[in-house]
C-alpha cells in the first residue's frame, strides 16, 4: 500500500517548474511535508489528489496512476483537507460533513462519528459559514474522516495545513485523530509550517527546498535536526528541551 511520486515535475506556467523530479514513496503512517514558502508543499498534495496532472513523471497509488482512477474510485481512496473549508450556500456543519459520503454508501453513523472525533457534534445544525475559521478547519477534518470511514483497501489522507487556525487544545486533538487514523493503516501526508507539530506527529518527514526539489526524505529524527532545518529555512534553528518536551525554535544568527 504505497503512494508513489515517480520523478514528478509540475509547472503552473511552462517557464517555471514548481516541483522538480520528486521521487518519493509514502507508506501508511504520517509523512510531514515541510519547506519554505513556495517550495511546492500544497502543489504536491494537489498532485497526490489528482487535482493537477504532473508535467512529467507519475503519481500512483498501489501502482495505479491517481489520474487514472474515476472520480468515485479516487474519492473512495483519497481524502483531501484544504487549508480552509468553505461552502457558497448556507449548508449546516452536518450537511457539509455528509458531502464526504457523496461517493460512499450513505452512512449517518460515519458522519456522527466524524463530528464527534473533532468535537463538533454540538455544532452540527449551525451553518458552516457562521463558525470560526478554526472550527471550519475542524469541520474539514471531519468531512475527510467521514469520507474514509469504512473504506477498504488503500486509504490516503492529504492535509494542507489543516490546523493553522486552531487553538492549541484542538491542534493536539486533531493530531491525535491523525495518529489514530495512521494506526489503522491510513497514509497521511500532512503539510505544515509548524515544525513542532510535524516533529510531534510525523513518522517520516519530506523536506522540500525552495527550488521545488527534495532536500531530505527520511525518518523524522534524521530530518528534524537543527542543522538540516537551518540550511533549508535560512535561519538558525535551535532545539530546546524541558522536562521531556522538546521544541524547535528559529532564531536570528548571533
Amino acid at each position, binding site marked *: 500500500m504505497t503512494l508513489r511520486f515517480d520523478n514528478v515535475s509540475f509547472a503552473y506556467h511552462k517557464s517555471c517548474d514548481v516541483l522538480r523530479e520528486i521521487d518519493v514513496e509514502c507508506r501508511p503512517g504520517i509523512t510531514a511535508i515541510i519547506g519554505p514558502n513556495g517550495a511546492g508543499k500544497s502543489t504536491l498534495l*494537489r498532485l497526490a*489528489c*489528482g*487535482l493537477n496532472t504532473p508535467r512529467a513523471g507519475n503519481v500512483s497509488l498501489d501502482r495505479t496512476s491517481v489520474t487514472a482512477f474515476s*472520480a*468515485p474510485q*479516487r*474519492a*473512495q481512496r*483519497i*481524502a*483531501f483537507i*484544504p487549508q480552509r*473549508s*468553505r*461552502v*457558497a*450556500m*448556507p*449548508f449546516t456543519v452536518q*450537511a*457539509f460533513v455528509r*458531502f*464526504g459520503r*457523496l*461517493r460512499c454508501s450513505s452512512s449517518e453513523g460515519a458522519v456522527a462519528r466524524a463530528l464527534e472525533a473533532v468535537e463538533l457534534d454540538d455544532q452540527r445544525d449551525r*451553518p*458552516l*459559514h*457562521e463558525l470560526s475559521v478554526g472550527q471550519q478547519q475542524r469541520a*474539514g477534518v471531519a*468531512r475527510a474522516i467521514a*469520507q474514509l470511514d469504512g473504506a477498504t483497501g488503500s486509504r490516503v489522507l492529504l492535509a494542507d495545513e489543516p490546523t493553522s487556525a486552531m487553538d492549541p487544545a484542538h491542534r493536539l486533538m486533531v493530531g491525535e485523530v491523525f495518529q489514530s487514523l495512521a494506526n489503522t493503516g491510513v497514509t497521511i501526508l500532512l503539510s505544515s509550517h509548524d515544525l513542532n507539530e510535524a516533529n510531534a506527529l510525523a513518522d517520516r518527514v519530506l523536506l522540500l527546498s525552495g527550488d521545488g526539489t527534495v532536500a531530505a526524505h527520511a525518518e523524522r529524527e534524521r530530518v528534524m535536526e537543527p542543522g538540516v532545518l537551518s540550511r533549508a529555512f535560512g535561519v538558525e534553528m535551535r532545539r530546546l528541551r524541558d522536562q521531556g518536551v522538546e521544541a524547535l525554535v528559529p532564531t536570528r544568527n548571533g
Partner: protein
Amino acid sequence: MKARPVLLIVVAAFGVMLASALRLLVSNVDGGLILAWPGDPTILSIRLWSAIASGLVGGSLAASGVLLQSVMRNPLAGPSLLGMTAGAALGVAIATYITFLYSGTIVMHRAPVVAAVIGALASLGIVVLLASWRGGLDPVSVVLIGLVISVLCGALILLVQHLLPDGGLAFAQRWTMGSITQERAWGLAAGVGGLLVVSLVFGMWLGPSLDAASMSDDEARSVGVELGRLRLACLLIAGLLTAGSVALAGPIGFVGLICPHIARSIAGPSHRTLIVLSTLLGVSMLVLGESLVAAIRLPGGRLPVGVVMALVGGPAFLILLRKGFASGFDSWGRA
C-alpha cells in the same frame, strides 16, 4: 426526502393550482374585472393555453436559475445574466429579419422555436468556449463573459430592429419585454413541459452532487464531484429551458433570479427540494402575473407579463437581498 420539504412542495403545488384556477376565471370585459368560468370552449382554450404556457415559462426559468446559481456559485447567475435570454432573443430577431427579407412582412405570430433554441445554445456555446480557454469552467469567467455576450446580443437585436421598417416597432413590442404568445402551440408546450420534467428529474438525481459542488472546486472534486461534466450538463439544460421559455414568451427577467432565492430562504439549500420548490414558485409567479395582465386593461392594450415580472421582481429581489444578508446568505461568492 424529509417531512418538511414534502410539506413545502405540497403547499407550493396547491399554490400552483390556485393560481391556475384564477387564470381560468379572470377576464376584463369593457374595463370591468370579471371572475367567471368561461362558457365558450374557445375562450376556455385560450385561457387554458395562457395558464399552461405561462406556467411552463415560469417553471423553466426558475429551474434554470437554480441550476445556474448552483454550478456558478453565484447568486446573480440566471438565464439573463449568462447571455442565454439575449441569445435566444437574437436568434428570434435574426429569424424575423430573414423572414422579412423573403416575405416583406414582419411575421410575429409563429413561435420561432428553432431560432430561439439556436440563439440560446449558440450564446451559451460561446460563453462556455471562451470561459474554458483557461482550463475548466471558472464561475467568475462564465458570469463575466455571459454579461458581455448579453450586451452584445442586446446591441445586435437593436441593430436588427432598425433594419426592419418603422424601426421594427411590432418586433420590439414583443421582444423587449416578454409576453406569452397568443398562438396556441400545444406541441411546443408539450416539448417545453417534457424538458422541464427531465430537468427536475436531473436536478433531483444529481442533487447531492449539486450540494457538494457548493464547496470550493478542489474540495468538491476531492469528494468525487465531476465538476466539468456537472457544469456542462447544467449549462446545457439551463440553455434548453431558457430557449423553450423564450420561444413561448420572449425574454422575461427576474423569475429565474428570484425564485431560487425565495425557495432557498424557505426550504434551505438542499437541491433535491430546492429545484422542485423553485420550479413550482416560478409556475405560480408567472401564472399570477398572467392573471394580473388579463385582469387589467390599459389604453395601449394588454400589458406584456414581462413588465409585471420586472416591476414586482425587482423590488422583491432588493427586499430579499436585504433580508438574505441579515440571515447569513452573505457566504455567497466567498468560497
